């Protein structure tokens, strides 16, 4: 069993992971199992989260280390690297700058492959921990939610796979972004095909009081030719306790790290869900490792 993309997971399969994440307990179910970590680009946080999850289940990890110190630097193909590392580990976690890399790896090894981000492509464990957070902290029935997704909707892969996953639960969606950073055509087409109810707006004011969750992502400076234009736009998509004053009990999520799109004054309010969201990476990854490595499921 590989975890390559939430796109090819059914709603039932996603719920199996979310249910298991709820019940999985620290213990020794993966004692003697070794997880191989292949991070071809740095993502310390994701790596730590997988390591923590594996160790809490009694397993261990081997880490390829940085690309600079490995054979990859000498021009080894990914296909060769994974075939070698398969001999050291029972399952592989791969993060790689190219889209489709985890799928390719899965074709060359028998060990289960978990995609921890492939370029601008998929990052299924992030999507699953986002769904888990909404389900545990907001409402058990994801289909009853109204979720606002705000920020860079054009380039943000987190946002694309989260939206398409929520669409499978029939979650009502509102997309909030400047016109330059609207959803790309292919994602919009897929949402239309799914039959989910969604709308696209430029201002959060009109929708925020109806939202259960506001998922905020970062608007990057590089997307704008002019600094002043960036400043103006980024400013109007910032969230603070002031801007949410009349917003009911909307919960704010963010994949972190944030820079200044969420004011720290929101941290101690009921709105803030982002730190709990980050912590949920561990039980969700424990559930996935347990299922993939045969502890259960």
């Amino acid at each position, binding site marked *: 069993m590989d975890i390559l993309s939430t796109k090819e997971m059914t709603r039932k399969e996603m719920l199996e992971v979310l249910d298991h994440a709820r019940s999985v307990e620290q213990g020794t179910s993966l004692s003697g199992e070794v997880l191989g970590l292949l991070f071809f680009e740095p993502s310390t946080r994701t790596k730590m989260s997988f390591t923590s999850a594996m160790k809490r289940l009694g397993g261990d990890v081997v880490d390829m280390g940085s690309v600079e110190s490995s054979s990859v630097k000498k021009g080894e*193909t990914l*296909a060769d690297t994974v075939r070698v590392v398969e001999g050291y580990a029972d399952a592989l976690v791969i993060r790689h700058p*190219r*889209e*489709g890399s985890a799928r*390719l790896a899965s074709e060359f090894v028998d060990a289960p492959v978990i995609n921890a981000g*492939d370029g601008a*492509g998929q990052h299924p464990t992030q999507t699953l921990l986002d769904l888990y957070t909404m389900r545990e902290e907001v409402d058990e029935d994801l289909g009853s939610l109204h979720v606002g997704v705000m920020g860079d909707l054009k380039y943000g892969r987190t946002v694309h796979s989260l939206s398409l996953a929520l669409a499978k639960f029939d979650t009502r969606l509102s997309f909030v972004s400047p016109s330059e950073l609207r959803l790309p055509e292919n994602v919009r087409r897929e949402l239309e095909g799914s039959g989910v109810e969604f709308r696209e707006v430029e201002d959060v004011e009109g929708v925020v009081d109806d939202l259960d969750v506001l998922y905020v992502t970062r608007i990057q400076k590089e997307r704008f030719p002019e600094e002043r234009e960036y400043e103006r736009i980024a400013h109007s998509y910032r969230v603070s306790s002031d801007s949410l004053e009349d917003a009911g009990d909307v919960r704010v999520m963010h994949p972190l790290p944030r820079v200044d799109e969420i004011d720290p004054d929101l941290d101690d309010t009921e709105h803030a869900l982002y730190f709990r969201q980050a912590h949920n990476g561990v039980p969700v990854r424990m559930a996935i490792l347990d299922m993939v490595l045969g502890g259960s499921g």
Partner: protein
Amino acid sequence: MEELRIRPIRDGTVIDHIERGRALEVLKILGVDSSTRDVVSVAMNVSSEKMGAKDVVKVEGREIGSTETDIIALIAPEATVNVVREYEVTEKYVVSMPDEITGVLTCPNPSCITNGGEPVETSFEVEDDGELRCSYCDEVLEDEVAEYIS
């Protein structure tokens, strides 16, 4: 009239009933260019009872492969392939829409893993509406399929 234009060949492949205007794309799919030494004949805008007008391509001395006919099916779904041996049509079939196209096409996404020097063939899924989607990176081919032949 048609019979005159399409002179019988001894060995090779005749691709008939190509949608009018698509013959040049078919040639591209077959890899026919200035370096080709096979005898290749093209008839365009031939009148056809079934199609009104059609194109026909004939390649002598060569039997085309299934990957090529799969791609031809995408641009000319009504095309028929006639394999000729010793002046006899030994095989005749209508091309059929494949589920997947392996090799031949290049993914236009520069950061797709199939463009990263890995030992794999490209693979594209053919969706119900005929759209081609990279099995690795999900990129959809937006232009004519002949544009992506490597």
